C-alpha cells in the first residue's frame, strides 16, 4: 500500500526544549490513523510540521511522496487541515469563510457556493451561517474550520482534535463521513483525547509521549490480542490520583 504520510527523523526544538524528537512515521493511503498522547506531548507540533505550519528543526516530511519543503504549494493543494487553533478570522461569518477558501483552491464561484451550502447543511450550520466567528460557539467554529478543510475534497485530511467541543449528533455525522472518505481513498490523520471514538474509527495509531513515539499498533491486531486501546494508552501515560487535593472533599 502506498504511503500517504511519511516522516524521517522529524524533530522540532524550541530553544532547549525538544517538542518532537526524531519522529519516524508512516501512514498508508486511504486509512484513518490516530495520533494519541497526553497534553503537551507533541501531537499538535507534529501536525503543524506535517501541514507546513511549522518548520522542522530537522528531518523530512513526505506527503504523497512529495517533500513538503520543496513542494509546499502542491502539498497544500492536496491536504485539508483542521488545525488546533482553528485558524479563523474573527470578523468573517461562517458562510464567508467557506466562500473565501473555494476560489483559492481553484473552485468556481458557483461550485464554491454549492459545496459551501451542502457542507454547512451537513454540519448543521446552515441556519447560523451568517454568525460572525467571534460570536460563534467553539463547536460552531470547529465545524466551520472542518468545512473549510473539506471544501476542496482533499486527498489527505489532518484533523487536530476533531471531536472536542462538538455536539453528539454532529460528532456521529463526522465519524460516518470520515469512514466514507477513508473508504473512498482519503487518508485521515487525526489526534484525539476521546479514546473510545478513536478505537472505533482508526485502523492504526501511535502514542507520543514527551515528543517520542512510545507505541504504535494496528487496531485489528490489538483487538485480536484482547487488549483495548485505553489499556495501551495508560500503560504509557501515567496518571495522578489527586490524593493531595483532600481539601476539595
Amino acid at each position: 500500500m502506498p504511503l500517504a504520510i511519511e516522516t524521517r527523523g522529524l524533530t522540532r526544538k524550541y530553544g532547549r526544549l525538544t517538542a518532537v524528537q526524531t519522529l519516524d512515521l508512516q501512514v498508508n493511503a486511504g486509512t484513518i490513523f490516530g495520533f494519541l498522547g497526553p497534553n503537551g506531548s507533541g501531537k499538535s507540533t507534529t501536525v503543524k510540521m506535517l501541514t507546513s505550519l511549522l518548520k522542522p528543526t530537522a528531518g523530512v516530511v513526505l506527503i504523497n511522496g512529495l517533500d513538503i519543503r520543496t513542494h509546499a504549494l502542491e502539498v497544500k493543494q492536496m491536504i485539508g487541515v483542521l488545525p488546533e487553533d482553528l485558524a479563523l478570522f474573527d470578523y468573517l461569518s461562517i458562510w464567508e469563510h467557506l466562500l473565501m477558501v473555494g476560489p483559492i483552491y481553484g473552485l468556481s464561484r458557483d461550485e464554491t457556493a454549492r459545496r459551501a451550502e451542502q457542507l454547512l447543511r451537513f454540519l448543521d450550520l446552515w441556519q447560523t451561517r451568517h454568525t460572525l466567528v467571534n460570536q460563534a460557539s467553539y463547536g460552531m467554529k470547529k465545524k466551520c474550520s472542518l468545512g473549510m478543510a473539506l471544501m476542496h475534497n482533499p486527498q489527505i485530511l489532518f484533523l487536530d482534535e476533531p471531536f472536542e467541543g462538538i455536539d453528539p449528533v454532529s460528532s456521529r455525522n463526522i465519524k460516518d463521513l470520515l469512514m466514507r472518505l477513508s473508504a473512498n481513498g482519503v487518508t485521515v490523520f487525526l489526534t484525539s483525547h476521546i479514546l473510545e471514538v478513536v478505537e472505533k474509527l482508526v485502523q492504526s495509531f501511535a502514542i507520543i509521549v514527551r515528543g517520542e513515539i512510545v507505541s504504535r499498533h494496528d487496531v485489528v491486531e490489538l483487538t485480536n490480542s484482547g487488549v483495548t486501546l485505553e489499556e495501551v494508552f495508560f500503560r504509557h501515560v501515567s496518571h495522578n490520583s489527586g490524593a493531595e487535593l483532600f481539601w476539595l472533599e
Partner: protein
Amino acid sequence: MAGIVAVLRSLWVSYWRMVKRPGNLTAGHQGALFIIVGLILFKYVQFLRLSALDLGRGSTRRLEVLLGAIFVIWMFPLVGDTQFGALRRSTYLPFSSHQLYVIRLLSPFVALRSWVIAGASAGMFYWLHYTSQPAAALVAIVLFVTFSYFSGLAAADLSATAVGRRCLVILLILASLGVTADAALTGHGVMVEMRRVRLLLPPHLVGRILVGERVVGSLALLAVFTSVAWALSTLATKTSLQGEPLRGSRARTGRGLPILPGKFAGLVAKDLRHFQRLPDLYFGLLVVIVSALYLISAPDPSVQVLWPILILYFASNVMAPFNFFGADDAVGFDRYMLMPLTGKMIILSKNIACLLLVAVQTVPLVCLVVWRMGWLMGFLSLIEVGGMMFCYMSWGNWISISHPRRIHFHRFASEGPLPEILLGVVFGSLPGVLGVAVAVKENNSFSSLIWQMTLIFIASFVIYLGSLSRFGKAMEQRRESIKAALS
C-alpha cells in the same frame, strides 16, 4: 482592595513581559526611539517655555495649542489600550462595577507611555511661575488633565461597543451640523463660528484662568466639563464591561462582504472589513473630507494646495500599509499558511485591499478635481496618488514582515517602530513631494509636467514590483517570527 492590586499586578507583569519579549534592548531600534521621544520632549519643553513667556504678554494662543495637543495625546494610551480586552474577560471575577471601574481607571498606567504623557502633563505646572493666580491655575491644570483623562477613557470605552461607536458618530455629526446651522442662521462664516465654539473649550478656559480673566466662572465651567467627562466615562466603562459589544456588528456586517472577482476576493474583502475597524484610518477620511470641502468651496482651487493635502492623507493612513498582518492575529495568520498561496500572492492580496481602501477615498477627490480643474489635472492627480500609493506599499511590504505587531480592533494602532515608520512616511511621500515640486516649477510646460509625473509614477511602480517579489519570498522565510509577533 487586595483583588484590585492583584489584577493590576498581573496586568503589569503581562505588559512588561511583552515589552521585554524581544530579549534585546536594541530590538525595534529602541535607541533611535528614545532619541526621537527625547527630541519631541525637548521641543515640548521649548514650547512650554515660549507659551509661558506669552502668558506674561497676556497671549494664550500657543498655550491653548499645547493644551489641545495634551488632550489629544491622552487619547492614544487610552483608546489604544489593549489591556482592556483582558479586563473585559475578567468580569467573571467577584468585583463590583465600582471596583471594575477603579481597575479600568488605573490599568492604562501599566504602560510606560502613560507615564511619559503624565510627566509631560505635569510639565504644565511650569506655567504657575508666570501666572498671577497660581492657586487657581494649579486647580485649572489638574482639572484639565483629569478632564482629558476621563474624556479619553469615555471615548475608548464607548468605541469598544457598537452602540457607543454609533453614539460617538452621531455626536460628531450633531456637533458639525450645529456649528454649520448656527453659522447659517447668524450669517457668520463657519470659521467665525468655530472661533466662538473655541471660547467654550477647556483649553481656552485654562488660558483665561492663567491670565487672570473671569477666573471663577472659567473654573466652574471647567469643573462641570470634568464632572461630565467623569460621569460619561463611568457610564461607558460600565456599558462596555457588561454589554454585548458585538451584537450590532453581527446584524450589520455578517452578510455584507463585498462581492469581488478573482482568486483572492475573499481575502481582500476580509482585509477591507478589518480596515473599517481601525480608528487610525478615519484620520485619512477626515483629510479627504477637508480636501473635498476645499475643492468644492475654493473659488480657484489649485493642485499646489491639493497635492500637499494628499501627501498628508497618505501620511495619516500609514497604519493600513505599514502593518498588513496586524489585524489577522496569529490564528488568522495560520490560515494564510495553510492555503496554497505563495508569500507573493498573500502580500498581493493585502496590497489590493489597501489599494481599494485608498481608491474608495481618493477617487471621489479626483472626480472633484476633474470637475473643478479639468481632465488633465484629474489625470495628474491620479498619477500623484498612484505614485505615493506604490511607494507606501513598497515600504509597507517590508515593514509588515520585518516589524509586524498585533492590532486590536477599535483601538488606535499608531504605535510601532517609530524610526521605520517616519522613514517610510518620507519614502512614501517622495513621489508626492516630487510631484508638487514639478507642479510649482516656473516655466514648466504642460507636456513636460505630464512627462515628469509619468516618470515618477513608473519609477514608483517598478519599486513596488521589486518589493512584491523580494518581500513575498522573505515572508515565507519569516513566517514563524511574524506569527510569534502577532500572538
